[in-house]
């Protein structure tokens, strides 16, 4: 069997989609699995720019990614792989795991993309992930409840002591106290001060517990966090025909955050947006970022759903408040805890043409020039 025939037989049977492009991004080969995955025949797409298989913003940026690699040789995805989003011919997007290899054929550079549709796998993991988050948060709330009881108990002791020392001192100073009574009153006041310091220490320990969780903050690319979280959140929504638009500000892409936690916030907000639109005629979601206020970046997730009821809105970020028939109502409470622990804030407002806009801020990372 000749090399080309051999390659063709592999292309026809390999379960993952395989797409070969030249170094300018033009499609050279499109496997049978790719035809099935994307809804195009190979003959239709050969010669087209591979960016046609991506939603914005990757679609318009992909030529730049290739140029950057040709110019610098710095690998951002080749040999690394990542979870991202692809678009079917019918306009719907779906999550994929993309791995890219590089080769030279007849002195020409080609890139081979192996694409695995992770919709099915993610659907199973999705529920597990949700349950895990809920349990973790409930666990933390329960821990906080335990801590609050313990705090009340611990604080009660110095407060009781302070009360008796103050009463004792007041009794000793009544009338015309002698030298010994004055000395005892001084001692009682010193003990009062000590107990007040002890109470302060207990409060400080509590604050440390609440504010310094076990987080790992690093400089992260906000666009990458959003792309990955969006890909995961869109799992299983194919049939709903959600139109997702992503407008990210490339100038303020670096944030100083715990990647997992912020992806959890994004994931929760995107899933909420999708669920809010299921009964709507127009199902359009926009995810955008922009600089400010001050040293923060604002992330905005807007849906075209029916909006949030006035009764639920004021307590939206409180735990166990929900307008959904299922779920525990702690998703937004988790979001607020995480965002505020990062020094940001989260809020929601009514969208211009119905629907809801959730916004939250994250600290910009200081990136050194050069």
């Amino acid at each position, binding site marked *: 069997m000749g090399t080309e025939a051999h390659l063709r037989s592999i292309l026809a049977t390999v379960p993952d989609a395989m797409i070969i492009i030249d170094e300018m991004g033009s499609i050279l080969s499109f496997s049978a699995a790719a035809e099935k995955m994307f809804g195009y025949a190979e003959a239709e797409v050969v010669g087209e720019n591979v*960016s046609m298989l991506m939603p914005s913003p990757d679609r318009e940026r992909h*030529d730049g990614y290739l140029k950057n690699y040709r110019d610098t040789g710095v690998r951002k995805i080749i040999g690394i792989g990542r979870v991202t989003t692809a678009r079917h*011919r019918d306009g719907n997007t779906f999550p994929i795991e993309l791995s890219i290899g590089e080769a030279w054929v007849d002195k020409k550079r080609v890139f081979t993309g192996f694409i695995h549709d992770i919709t099915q796998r993610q659907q199973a993991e999705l529920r597990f992930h949700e349950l895990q988050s809920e349990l973790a948060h409930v666990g933390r709330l329960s821990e906080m409840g335990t801590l609050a009881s313990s705090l009340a108990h611990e604080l009660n002791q110095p407060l009781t002591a302070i009360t008796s020392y103050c009463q004792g001192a007041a009794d000793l100073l009544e009338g015309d106290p002698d030298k010994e009574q004055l000395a005892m009153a001084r001692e009682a006041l010193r003990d009062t001060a000590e107990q007040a310091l002890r109470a302060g220490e207990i409060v400080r320990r509590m604050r440390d517990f609440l504010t310094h969780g076990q987080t790992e903050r690093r400089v992260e690319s906000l666009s990458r966090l959003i792309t990955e979280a969006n890909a995961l959140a869109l799992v299983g929504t194919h049939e709903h025909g959600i*139109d997702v*638009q992503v407008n990210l500000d490339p100038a303020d892409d670096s944030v100083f955050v715990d990647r997992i936690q912020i992806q959890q916030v994004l994931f929760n907000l995107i899933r909420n947006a999708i669920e809010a639109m299921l009964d709507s005629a127009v199902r*359009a979601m926009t995810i955008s970022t922009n600089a400010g206020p001050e040293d923060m970046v604002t992330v905005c997730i807007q849906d075209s759903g029916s909006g949030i009821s006035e009764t639920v809105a004021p307590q939206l970020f409180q735990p166990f408040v929900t307008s959904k028939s299922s779920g525990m109502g702690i998703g937004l409470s988790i979001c607020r805890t995480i965002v505020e622990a990062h020094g940001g804030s989260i809020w929601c407002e009514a969208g211009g043409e119905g629907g809801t806009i959730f916004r939250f801020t994250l600290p910009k990372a200081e990136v050194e020039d050069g």
Partner: protein
Amino acid sequence: MNWKSIRLELASTGDFPAGSVSRAYLVRLPLNDEDKLDEAALQLAPTKATVRRHWSNDPDERGFVVRANGHWSLRCEGKDRLLQLDSGPIRLGGHLSMIEPNGDILPFKIASVR
């Protein structure tokens, strides 16, 4: 009322003799029993008539089908592209013409009606 998702792909032009599947519009429209535009249904729910433009490596655009100056227009990001929607049935394999904001007339093939 029968709302359909219609994919229009660029048909043969001077620049693209074989057409181009990467230059497409996804339009949501109500069709009647004869597969023609159901104007009454569209007037009842104009925000359901959405448009998405996926054009090579341009950023995605979206908007609505609107009636402007006696013509049907795909209005995306403030730009109007006139589309001959009232000329006949909208069926798989059929063709429609579109007038771009610069006056160019582009042919489109109806690639799917779902």
